[in-house]
């Protein structure tokens, strides 16, 4: 099963907000390669917007799989984009691999992060014109990046250390500090949290593509 994300769909906000959806998947041939353009809808819920605007970075995941219809998998890619907002300079930044884009307003950031242009999937030589291929796409957004989780873990530990500095009776045992570390360790992993779209599948033939 493709894209078996550990979705935390039980969050109340995820139910309230509109579901993330893959609006359009457009494959095309470009420079002897098969590329795909993906448009995502409802990526930014109210909750996500609030989170981003507080300065917390969010992470957009897009998983793409190319396979022969009813046959073998040819390629699989995971695109990860980090979106952050500089509350002092009032600008958005999108980071993907080594690429970094700075955008002055939310709309342009939304536009840029919701549309992924010409993601290369395979060399055309590897594909056969008469065969049908299937592209499966799933996307999601997590308002907590791995870095943020770690930061939260260190907050937990720091808060406990502050408490220890105050000189509470618990300090003598040192047990509280260890417990906090344990809790932070348990929640500090790079788990996927957030809103995930259903899978979108499109079928095509190379010969039909422009």
């Amino acid at each position, binding site marked *: 099963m493709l894209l078996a994300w550990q979705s*935390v769909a*039980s*969050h109340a906000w995820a139910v309230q907000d509109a579901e993330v959806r893959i609006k359009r998947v457009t494959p095309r041939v470009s420079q002897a390669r098969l590329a795909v353009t993906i448009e995502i809808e409802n990526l930014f819920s109210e909750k996500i917007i*609030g*989170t981003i605007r*507080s*300065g*917390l970075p969010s992470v957009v995941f897009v998983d793409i799989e190319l396979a022969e219809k009813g046959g073998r998998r040819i390629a699989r890619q995971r695109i990860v984009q980090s979106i952050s907002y*500089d*509350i*002092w*300079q*009032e*600008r958005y930044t999108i980071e993907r691999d080594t690429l970094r884009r700075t955008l002055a307003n939310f709309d342009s950031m939304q536009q840029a992060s919701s549309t992924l242009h010409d993601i290369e999937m395979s060399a055309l030589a590897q594909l056969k014109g008469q065969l049908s291929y299937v592209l499966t796409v799933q996307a999601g957004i997590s*308002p*907590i990046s791995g870095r*943020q*989780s770690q*930061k*939260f873990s260190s*907050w937990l530990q720091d808060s406990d250390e502050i408490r220890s500095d105050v000189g509470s009776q618990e300090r003598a045992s040192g047990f509280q500090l260890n*417990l906090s570390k*344990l*809790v*932070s360790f*348990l*929640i500090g992993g790079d*788990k996927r*949290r957030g809103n995930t779209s259903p899978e979108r599948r499109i079928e095509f033939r190379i010969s039909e593509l422009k």
Partner: protein
Amino acid sequence: MVNFRFQTKFMLATLLITLLPVVPLYFLIDKFYQTSIEVGLNPQVEGALEGAAGMSQLLFAHYKEALLEIVEAQAQKTDAAHADSKIGQSTLSLPTDLSLFEALDLRALDRQGNVFAAGHTGIEWRAPALSRSEIASLIDGSSARIVPHANSPAVLMAVAPIPAQNGILIAFARTNPAFVRSSHQIVEVNQMFKTIGLLRDDLRQGFVFAFFIVYVPIAALSLLVGYFFAKKVTAPMQILADGTQKIASGDWQHRVEYAAQDELGQLVTAFNRMVEEVKTRQDRVVQLEKMTVWREMARVLAHEIKNPLTPIQLTVQQLNDKYDDKNSAYGLLLKECTDIINDELQNLQQLVREFSEFARMPKLQKTTGSLNELIAETARRYRDLDITTKLDSEVPEMLLDFEKMRRVLINFFDNSRYSIHEKGSGAIVITTQKTGEMVLLRFSDTGTGISEQALAKIFEPHFSTKKSGMGLGLAIVRNIVQEHGGSIRCNSELGRGATFDIELPMNAVAEQIVG
């Protein structure tokens, strides 16, 4: 089986005690967590934090506007001054009254990036340096603007064109550190708050996992301790159970070994003592039964033998009386025969007396007296023997049947005398010693001793190593000692002598004296 059941019960009890608090504790922790989350993450707090963050941003926007005004005004002034050719490479005059910024740094640059005028006001502060490429990217702007500089509210940067010089004025402002610190804190707390809201379920899960991670080893440790104690408690019980089974199957010599002095140790000691007493009593019962049989036999024998003795004796007398001395040879024969018959009759009468005495064994007639004195007095009768006495002065007066005890001593002396004579030489040593609630009387000689085979039977009736006697002496001795509630044992090595140990209790004596 006993071990398994008890251990299992013990382990189950430990498990129950360990696990019982888990459910209420879990719900309690969960409730605490939910309550604290609800208290902390309420909309008012969230709103206040967002409001504070908004205020910080608003204040920062105000700083930006103020800096923009300053940079525009200074750019116009510089432009005018330059147009009037009032300044060359000179110092810019800046307002000294800075209410918003801690420091302000202005640089007027020509198109090549050369500074032709500069000014600084406020505290000592080195404004950030700009590279030529950064300057080049700023030069073409047509209006005054804020330039994003760093992800921090600490430093603001603005730029405005100076048309006359075809250059730009770059301004750096350092904001109030208290504002910077507060803003950072507000933003950080707001982010933390939002993260807690987003990680609410993960956090709860984390606490639950942490609780179980801490609890599971504790529970395992408790079980381990429970198992250890169950084993520690059941081990001696198992030994006790095994010992009971061995004793029940007839091994009366078996004793349970358990060194600890705890309650179980006391139980084991009591058990061993009980086995010892049961064994002693059982031996005594067996002995008494045997003795009863022997006595009955002795009584019947004495009766059956005694009855024809008198007619035989009378008949022999009659034979002698009726002889008329006519045949001297016959007369001599008759005398020899009747002498033999009379001797044998005397032996038989002695036998009957001993049997009768053994069969009768009257009840003890106890009186208070000194055992040591009895020994000394009896020893004096045997001046022909080499006797040494070591009598413990701590031995108190005792309630004994002194006639019977004298008989015991006489029996020992007679036996020793016989044994020493057989060997040719030897000595006797008699000691007494008070040992706890008992008095030990030890009678030793260095005579011929008793063989190992004979040692096992010396207290049996009708057993003797002597050439004469009926072999009832030591049987009677043991009977007398046991009647006194004591015990007797003999150690001997053939050729080296024998030692008899008699233990007599003092407690019964003391009780009777007090009574």
